């Protein structure tokens, strides 16, 4: 008995010692022929990664694995891949759908530890971008950008906001910014003039209240923090990286008052019924809604397919985002979606060629055709977007697409992922009514300053 016990003890200690050493080396072990097929559907059939080493003289098909989300409901992913494959017959692009809810978490997990199978990864948001950079899994793109003479000014200043230590790790291909969507029929019924393209937040509040009545909501705020907290970064004087969040107070109070007066649905209601913002607007009982430009694509596609009822929300328009007093008209929040090359990728040159394609003019055209906004916006793309069937044809809606300043919802900083988590948690507590706005702001201040 004693001998066995001793043996067990020695075994345990050995295991402890070995595991303590195992983490020390961060080297990537060659995964060899690990055929990971990802968590979702692939764009083109089975995984067939042909060996690059010595396959003879014939042109080998290079397979690139690309991580995306919502592949089924967002047509441009496949469209971009197909267009590139048309032009480059020796490349096969396989899309892997990681789902949109936890996309950055799943991607981060995949890129952790040893190698991953991805050649191109899509970056969904800046906190995820910051996390991947700190994990050291993204390739800097500056040398390639210089080599190919890519002019970064066409990205309207967004690339500067995500440059880290003079290095750029992603090339944006899609920019989205926030707009005010409104239901023209409800405005006509209430005999109120449509919102123009230069309204302050006070005017917006009054507008929503003037259209609201029993059964009709004047406004709708989705449960995301960006829908409520970020009105105030539009004067360019504040951002979520500040560490002091007193500037968010007036807008929390505005939204809370609207909730209390029944102008908009309450946060806890929306949460409990898990109501999606598209459903809220499509129901036809919401007069205005602040949402991102990606919703334009959703509206046009769903109205065309008949999923949304034309009677309820067919007569819709967009206006420039309401801004604080003193800020420029056309100032709005924005996000960029970009493509990066993981350091473990094996076909980096081909991947770069694809990234250039997507971020360039050809990619821009494809994105515009499905109603999305390419990062390298030009007049041609603008024309395409506004001529998509179902896009509101009034002049004001066209003008609303011209933005003056786009402030990234989450500009880069080393701690942006942690800051994001903290702000999200207390935003939920404030909106649920668990704590008061003042308490929430104090907690945000305290915890963000506690980070280095």
């Amino acid at each position, binding site marked *: 008995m004693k001998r066995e016990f001793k043996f067990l003890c020695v075994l*345990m200690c050995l*295991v*402890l010692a070995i*595991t*303590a050493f*195992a*983490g*020390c*080396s*961060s080297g990537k072990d060659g995964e060899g022929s690990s055929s990971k097929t990802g968590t979702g559907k692939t764009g083109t059939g089975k995984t067939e990664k042909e060996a690059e080493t010595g396959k003879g003289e014939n042109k080998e098909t290079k397979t690139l694995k690309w991580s995306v989300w919502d592949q089924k409901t967002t047509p441009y992913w496949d469209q971009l891949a197909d267009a590139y494959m048309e032009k480059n017959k020796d490349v096969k692009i396989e899309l892997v759908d990681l789902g949109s*809810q936890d996309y950055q*978490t799943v991607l*981060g*997990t995949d*890129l*952790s*530890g040893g190698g991953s199978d991805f050649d191109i990864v899509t970056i969904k948001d800046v906190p995820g971008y910051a*996390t991947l950079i*700190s*994990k*050291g*899994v993204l390739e800097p793109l500056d040398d390639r950008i210089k080599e190919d003479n890519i002019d970064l000014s066409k990205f309207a200043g967004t690339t500067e906001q995500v440059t880290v230590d003079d290095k750029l790790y992603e090339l944006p291909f899609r920019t989205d910014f926030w707009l005010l969507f409104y239901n023209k029929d409800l405005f006509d019924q209430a005999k109120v003039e449509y919102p123009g393209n230069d309204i302050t937040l006070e005017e917006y509040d009054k507008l929503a209240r003037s259209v609201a009545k029993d059964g009709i909501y004047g406004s709708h705020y989705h*449960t*995301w923090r960006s829908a409520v907290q970020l009105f105030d970064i539009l004067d360019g004087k504040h951002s979520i990286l500040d560490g002091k969040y007193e500037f968010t107070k007036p807008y929390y109070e505005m939204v809370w008052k609207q909730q209390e007066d029944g102008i908009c649905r309450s946060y*806890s*209601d*929306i*949460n*409990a*019924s*898990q*109501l*999606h913002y598209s459903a809220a607007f499509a129901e036809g009982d919401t007069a205005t809604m602040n949402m991102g430009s990606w919703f334009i694509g959703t509206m046009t596609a769903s109205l065309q397919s008949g999923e949304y009822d034309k009677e309820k929300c067919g007569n819709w328009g967009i206006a420039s985002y309401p801004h604080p007093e003193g800020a420029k008209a056309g100032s709005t929040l924005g996000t960029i979606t970009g493509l990066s090359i993981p350091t473990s990728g094996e076909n980096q040159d081909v991947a770069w060629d694809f990234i250039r394609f997507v971020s360039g003019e050809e990619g821009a055209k494809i994105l515009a055709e499905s109603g999305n906004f390419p990062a390298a916006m030009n007049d041609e793309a603008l024309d395409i977007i506004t001529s998509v069937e179902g896009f509101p044809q009034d002049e004001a809606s066209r003008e609303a697409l011209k933005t003056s300043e786009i402030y990234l919802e989450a500009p880069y900083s080393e701690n942006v*992922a*942690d800051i994001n*988590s903290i702000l*999200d*948690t*207390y935003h*939920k*507590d404030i909106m*649920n*009514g*668990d*704590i008061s706005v003042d308490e929430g702001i104090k*907690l945000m201040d305290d*915890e963000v300053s506690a980070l280095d």
Partner: protein
Amino acid sequence: MVEMTLQKGIRRKERKRNLIAYSFIAPNFIGFAVFTLIPVIYAFVLGFTKWDGNNPMEFVGFQNFTKLFQDRMFLAALKNTIIYCIGTVPLTMVASLALAVILNQKVKFRGFFRTVSFFPYVASLVAVTSVWNMLFHPTRGPVNWVLQNVFQVANPPNWFGKDLILLTMILFSVWKYTGYYMVIYLAGLQGISGELYDAGSLDGANTWQKFRYITWPQLHSTTFFVVIMLTITCFKVYDIAVMIAGGGDGRLGTSSTVLVYYICQKAFVNWDLGYASAVAMVLFALVLIVTLIQFRGERKLQE
């Protein structure tokens, strides 16, 4: 000389028997060792480091643990998990025991009721939580509608607000788990010999006395098992919390966050694997202590 050979022979047989025994256990044990035991030990080591999954590990001693006790979200998660446990365990135990006792009698449609009671346990969690959320919706759910219009309650409660969310989670868990533990109690009840009840009747015991002096003591090892399983299951709560309190985006706020959720967040969203492991170790210690206390109590009872 002969004795030594005899002893060797016996030992050889014993060794052979042991070998066969171990080879039967081996497959399961290897799986356990590789997927559970070694990762747990690894996590224990990780608790003393700072690591994000890619960059080299840094040894930081007890820093993670000292940080823990000043972490507001951790303390909230700890508090919520403990309250949830204290609420769910006794209620489930009582409910399942009561159901088992009733359904052990010759009641009409007994088989049907037993099936109905067991059903919530096997039903898909996502499906039942969706329905549950709809039922308890503060403004549009039937529960509050009934409270308001039938029972004339002026302000029906907000089941998902900070005051009641844990209660809602507890109610849901009790409903979900009762069936399973009822089956366990049924098995226990059927192991009680009928003679004991006959003897009791002879002594003039009424129903309550029969329960208190015969049924309950006879069930005490079943109860012990039920309470331990319930405690461990409740400390590990995650899916129920996220489905009921998570809202559309699956995020938990301060009033509904639980330990396992917090560990997940820290590990795979914030990539602070060392800190997450430290929290996991605290959870492990907590469950271990509670289980040891119960074992100790059980041993005392047996004496």
